């Protein structure tokens, strides 16, 4: 298919339809409203279910009911709305339901602001709601990648029967870029959802989809079953991209999403000035590419690992855990919708090259 110019939020919506998901529930919140508006128009055309719920609490639970049919379903929201969905996300994880949740992040905490941020990293990657569970978390850095990951996400949700979360900052939702949708969408075959879905107890025993296990042994079993799924994700789903990683680099940048893309621009410009810096960009934030980051960080030429985020050093904790003190892990970031420019990133990199033992000052 030819490339078309699309806004990120609309491209995400169309990608879901192209991946065979025609069921969508939502509640309005900036900066992701275009998804719901696009779906309200498009889903009747393709015979899907569109519903604007009364709250994100209700929408999350509508997803629970909808996913129980075995059909594909997703929602989009932004940070405060995602907080309200945590109840249902915990229940869906506990009940092994495949759903896709997109968080077009805005700054927080609280009502925060409406500009791009990456401040929901902890919420997305550490479970978010109560109980022993994780989400499979994907972080696109371009609109094309948002489309590709969106189309992949439904398969991953079904492969693991676990909620998948795509986190993009407001930039991913609001920016327009050329995107290309595949002519044909193909996925590896999985066992039929009819094996577990609620379809009516005709010719079989009644089924219950639940996360309640009052018998502690059964609850323990369920929690370790979840744990085993996450271990399998770690073996099979780690995704990342390396950019200009070379033996002469002294700094390894770790950054994701839009922030990583800005870092790429800064790295390209520095390269022209004869300064070589490499970037490690995690695409899966859970499972986190810890081993791969450690391998790069431990290379002899690396003096500093520099984590750059639009948050107050949330992913940095995972990088710290990956590197385990083998190299200093420095941080630079802005929050609240202040998106660092390539020049600002370059400035921080040059400071670190000149004074490798200094901490970076944020302001």
């Amino acid at each position: 298919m030819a490339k078309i110019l699309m806004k990120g939020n609309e491209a995400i919506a169309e990608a879901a339809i192209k991946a065979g998901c025609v069921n969508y529930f939502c509640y309005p919140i900036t900066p992701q409203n275009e998804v719901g508006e696009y779906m309200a128009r498009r889903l009747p055309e393709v015979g899907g279910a569109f519903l604007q719920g009364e709250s994100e609490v209700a929408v999350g639970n509508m997803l629970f009911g909808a996913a129980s049919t075995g059909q594909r379903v997703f929602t989009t929201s932004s940070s405060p709305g995602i907080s309200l969905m945590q109840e249902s996300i915990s229940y869906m994880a506990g009940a092994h339901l495949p759903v896709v949740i997109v968080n077009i992040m805005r700054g927080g905490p609280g009502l925060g602001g409406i500009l791009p941020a990456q401040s929901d990293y902890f919420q997305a990657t550490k479970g978010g709601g109560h109980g022993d569970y994780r989400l499979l978390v994907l972080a696109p850095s371009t609109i094309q990648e948002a489309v590709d990951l969106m189309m992949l996400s439904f398969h991953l949700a079904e492969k693991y029967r676990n909620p998948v979360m795509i986190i993009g900052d407001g930039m991913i939702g609001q920016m327009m870029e050329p995107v290309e949708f595949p002519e044909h969408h193909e996925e590896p075959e999985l066992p039929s959802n009819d094996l577990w879905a609620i379809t009516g107890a005709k010719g079989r025993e009644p089924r219950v989809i639940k996360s309640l296990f009052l018998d502690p042994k059964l609850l323990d079993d369920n929690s370790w079953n979840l744990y085993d799924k996450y271990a399998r994700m770690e073996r099979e789903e780690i995704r990342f991209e390396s950019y200009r990683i070379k033996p002469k680099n002294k700094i390894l940048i770790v950054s994701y999403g839009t922030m990583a893309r800005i870092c790429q621009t800064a790295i390209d410009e520095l390269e022209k000035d004869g300064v070589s810096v490499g970037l490690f960009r995690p695409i899966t934030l859970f499972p986190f590419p810890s081993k791969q980051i450690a391998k790069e960080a431990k290379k002899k030429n690396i003096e500093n690992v520099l984590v750059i985020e639009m948050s107050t050093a949330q992913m940095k904790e995972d990088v710290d855990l990956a590197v385990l003190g083998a190299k200093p892990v420095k941080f630079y970031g802005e929050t609240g919708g202040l998106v660092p420019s390539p020049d600002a990133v370059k400035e921080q990199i040059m400071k670190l090259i000149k004074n490798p033992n200094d901490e970076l000052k944020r302001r």
Partner: protein
Amino acid sequence: MNEDARTLFSRPESLNEVVTHYCPGCTHGVIHRLVAEVLDELGVRENTVGVAPVGCSVFIYKYLGTDFLEAPHGRAPALATGFKRLRPDMMVFTYQGDGDLASIGMGEIVHAANRGEKITTIFVNNAVYGMTGGQMAPTTMPGQVTTTSPGGRNVNDTGYPIRVAELLSALVTPNYIERVAVHTPQHIIKAKQAIRKAFTYQKEGRCFSLVEVLSTCPTNWGKTTEESLDWVESRMVPYFPLGCYKDPETAEVPDGAV
């Protein structure tokens, strides 16, 4: 066997042959049976999904022979909405208590009713939180002693009990809303008729339907079974009048279009 021998009473197919966890004198069992009878009579057991609440009836999935979803507290109507929108060909019902539906889940039930979701809700009102040990509910009667209203419900402090059937029937969307009770055989027969009508309307794809059932909780009311049945009649029925509050057959719908 005598040719004239006929089975006049038996366990409904939709009611599992298991011992329930309900306390002696609790009327959940009666209401479960009525739902099971109606599912049998309409022949829909194999095409039905129930949504269980949080509360005493959380284990309803052990007692009825249909598929079930177990919802977070109060969210059964949202789960039911999500399911029914994708599977309008299936029967979907929620079974919820007063804490679940009228307190934490008030938003979900009001909006499901207002959208006219083609689902059925069995709302069991026994004026108390049962499973958690007898705390005050939104439907607790004025002066009623509970573990969190030890001096009796003070309406100046906590307001009056919420009349759910009346509240929902104020919505413009044509729905079927009826309040029944199960404290006497006559009331049980009427309750069965209402539940049957509610499921029938859903089967016909007509409207949202809710049957509020006044029920007992001898354990948390601190009463015997007989005293509890009397208390429904003497205390609850005067405040929660029985009858049909809304029916799509008679609903007048203003145009309101812009």
